């Protein structure tokens, strides 16, 4: 493509196929705990 460069093709829609095992870490956003958002987490079932 000439006008658009895609950096990522859709990590969310692809993740629907993941097991959704919820084994990943907790993600507290509060300032007193380094305010992690879910986007910071790593997936445990690569």
């Amino acid at each position, binding site marked *: *493509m*000439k*006008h*658009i*460069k*895609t*950096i*990522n*093709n*859709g*990590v*969310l*829609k692809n*993740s*629907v196929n*993941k*097991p*959704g095992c*919820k*084994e*990943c*870490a*907790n*993600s*507290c*956003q*509060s*300032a*007193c*705990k*380094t*305010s*992690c*958002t*879910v*986007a*910071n*987490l*790593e*997936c*445990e079932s*690569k």
Partner: protein
Amino acid sequence: MKIHKYKQCGLNIVIDVNSGAIHVVDDVVYDILDFYEEKSKDEIINSLKERYSIDEIKEGIEEIESLINEKMLFTEDMYKNIVLNDENPSFIKAICLNIAHDCNLRCKYCFASEGNYHGKSELMSFEVGKAAIDFVIKNSGIRHNIEVDLFGGEPLLNFETVKQIIEYAKSEGEKNNKNIRFTITTNATLLNDEIIDYIDKNMGNVVLSIDGRQNVNDKIRIRRDGSGTYSDIMPKIKRMVEKRHKDKQYYVRGTFTHENLDFYEDVIFLADEGFKEISIEPVVLLDEHPLSLKEGDIPQIFEQYDKLTDEIIKRSKEGRYFKFYHFAIDVNGGPCIYKRISGCGAGHEYVAVTPNGDIYPCHQFVGNDKFKMGNVFEGVINRNISKEFKNGHIYNKPKCLDCWARFYCSGGCQANNYNFTGDIHNPYELGCMMMKKRVECAIAIKAKLSEE
């Protein structure tokens, strides 16, 4: 809102909200996207033909169409039903142990009211810690990974109990085939070589609090007598980080307030002191507090985030990368959609336990009777509270449903929402503004670094 677009670092960035796709586009496409959904092809050409050639506009439209066909632009939400039909039970898999409701410092912004959470000073006994470990193992169900966060107050005021709890948790974890990971958050004042070694061996993560430059830190992170802590803690934190096993995590974390809106300097200061994992957080305090962030502070805060973005890009290119936690978003990976929707899990996957064994949805709700869920010795929890929190996801938060950042943020901090708006479903506006900004910066960094 199906797409979000913005300009940063000289790039036109477009995020497709529902698929998570990210694109860098040229000016033609950027402008077409302004009215792509509302106008016909001819209308678009008509409105833009003064600025671009008709061929360019047509090409732009074609490229947009092809991305739509590939479900990378203007994608519809495809997760709502998955969430609303999710009848799977929640399991508690993370627990915050308030090892000490007491602290040797008097930091001026402390949400725990100088460590005691508005109650009496108290240390957790081993019996309570043991019951809490039993409780989480029992309630973790099919989950294999469990997190135990040793928190306070200042947990190192009660280090012997910390050790006992960890030894107990390790052996119980093994017996029950659970992988238990420990994190400790400390103000660093009580670190010595013995404790440092113990933490390094046993904790999956250690969070070390310092606010940055000496004058900033010493105005806020003070002892009872009002004296600053910088010269005491800085060498101890350095020693902890030096001794930290290279594969293991640590964070040097601080808080910025209305008093140091130039917190860019504090982040850079910590980076220049040699730390590679840094987190500087916006303070969360109600408006009347002198240190609280006000809406009028936002332009300066954003400017600081922009500066940090540029500096991180520059240092990354020079091989001097450091990780600023707010910008650490894995755009190519990260957790699955199930996790992104459920958010922090407070009250149903995560709970906090006080020194006397009371259970609350998280450390921020401790002391608020309305939210008391039970006690580790009773072993049961108030399922209504659990349910309320489980259902407090983005699909039940009208503002979030309209927000492009929802799959990065997952609906904000329930405690902040409650404290500022009286309702966990109604987000804390200032927090939203900063959240959206930090996601923009994080994505801009990735986009810029992927240019080469």
